[in-house]
């Protein structure tokens, strides 16, 4: 008799279980996997923004407007931008907006500390190579010798009270290595203010900003591109909130008549493509501006100086891929990075605190 009493209960339980399973299947899809999405072309790149939650839609609209505004202020090629005005002031002081002034002053401080690895006044040289216009060419040595004296970030004068900047005649600024990072830092503040708890801002793949964790609570999975195969990954990083900034020679380059690969990251001390032994640098940093500046600076420094810089300053982790296809990773990122593809069996050197 016991069966007759319990069978209906069992059936009911089985049905409930089925319903629960169904609800479980539908749950994550309905509540989490559909982010608000926006794409835009700004800062000379393609940006793809995703955010989750009730505030996401409004936050992304505000964010797009902010990115377009910053692009208009900071572009080096737009005759309406503040940077254009500075570059064409012919030695006179130029007033800046709060954003442009803050960015420039932080970038100048950073450049001064890199002892020449990064210089915000490199523009006359990078323009000679055609990297901002697409008219690629190799400048002759005389031309470079004439332009290099203009590259000197210590000659830029800021007046914090008047909020002006003054350049020596002929000198020109390019905030290309900093603008997306600064935009990412501002974006992180905006998303926090708006109460968005999960967002992934791909500001042109070289700067990726992560807010919170994925809606299901897991880490973001960010691939590092194989520098020699655009279709493959060199590895995947499991990341929490923060920024991922990458610099590599493979994104913007041309082949010179003599067959040399000329990429867009130039060494300010030589005015030529930076070839210090690295193919790509990926920096994980809480602050996107610092991360953006660092990825370019470390690429120019090369593996040894980059490791020394990390030991001396800290505050970030990095993954370096060198010319011999070895991977160097700072100890804080070693557990989070998994090599893939052609790099599955690559030599992976962990950079430790002690030399």
């Amino acid at each position, binding site marked *: 008799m016991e069966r007759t009493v319990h069978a209906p209960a069992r059936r009911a339980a089985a049905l409930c279980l089925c319903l629960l399973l169904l609800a479980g299947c539908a749950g994550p899809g309905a509540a989490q996997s559909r982010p608000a999405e926006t794409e835009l072309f700004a800062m000379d790149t393609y940006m793809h923004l995703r955010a989750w939650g009730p505030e996401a839609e409004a936050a992304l609209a505000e964010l797009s407007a902010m990115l377009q505004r910053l692009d208009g202020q900071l572009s080096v090629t737009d005759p309406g931008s503040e940077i254009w005005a500075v570059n064409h002031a012919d030695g006179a002081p130029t007033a800046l907006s709060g954003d442009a002034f803050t960015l420039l002053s932080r970038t100048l401080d950073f450049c001064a500390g890199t002892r020449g690895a990064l210089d915000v006044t490199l523009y006359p040289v990078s323009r000679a190579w055609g990297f901002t216009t697409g008219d690629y060419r190799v400048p002759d040595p005389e031309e470079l010798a004439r332009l290099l004296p203009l590259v000197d970030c210590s000659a830029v004068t800021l007046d914090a009270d008047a909020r002006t900047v003054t350049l020596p005649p002929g000198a020109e600024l390019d905030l290309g290595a900093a603008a997306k990072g600064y935009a990412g830092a501002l974006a992180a503040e905006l998303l926090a203010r708006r109460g968005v708890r999960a967002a992934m801002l791909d500001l042109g793949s070289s700067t990726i900003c992560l807010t919170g964790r994925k809606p299901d609570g897991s880490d973001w999975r960010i691939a*590092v*591109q194989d520098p020699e195969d655009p279709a493959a990954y060199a590895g995947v990083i499991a990341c929490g909130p923060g920024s991922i900034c990458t610099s590599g020679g493979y994104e913007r380059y041309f082949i010179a008549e003599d067959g040399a690969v000329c990429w867009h990251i130039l060494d300010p001390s030589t005015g030529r493509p930076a070839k210090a032994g690295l193919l790509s640098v990926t920096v994980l940093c809480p602050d996107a501006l610092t991360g953006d500046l660092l990825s370019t600076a470390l690429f120019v420094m090369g593996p040894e100086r980059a490791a020394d810089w990390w030991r001396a300053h800290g505050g970030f982790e990095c993954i370096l891929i060198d010319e011999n296809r070895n991977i160097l990773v700072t100890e804080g990122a070693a557990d989070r990075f998994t090599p893939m593809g052609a790099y599955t069996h690559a030599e992976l050197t962990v950079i430790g605190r002690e030399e």
Partner: protein
Amino acid sequence: MQSLRSLAGKNKTWALALAGLLAVLALAAALLARAQGGCVARVYQDGVCIRTVDLSRVREPFRFTVTDAHGHENTVEVEPGRIRVVQANCPDQTCVRTGWIGTGVRPIVCLPARLTIRLEAGAPDVDAVAR
């Protein structure tokens, strides 16, 4: 005893019905997963989707050319399961160099032409690609 046996028979009917229901659910789930995993490529011009190609349904390779008012031309090639920009008149050729895409989250982007090709995969392997 009679009532017990008939109840047992009823249970069997229930079990069969339940098994049938589960089978139907499993089939639906499998179809849904396939529909999501089946890769759809969307071609965007200045942020507007101008063409959608279900790569899982492509049998014969084909090409089409996207043009704009500024004279940009990108020729797109489609094969079963993958898509690429095969030819373009942009100066940087980044879109052509990107090569085939058929899985993953990496889009094809032609900045001068403001053209992007993105995949909509069911379960992407990574959330973004740093480059």
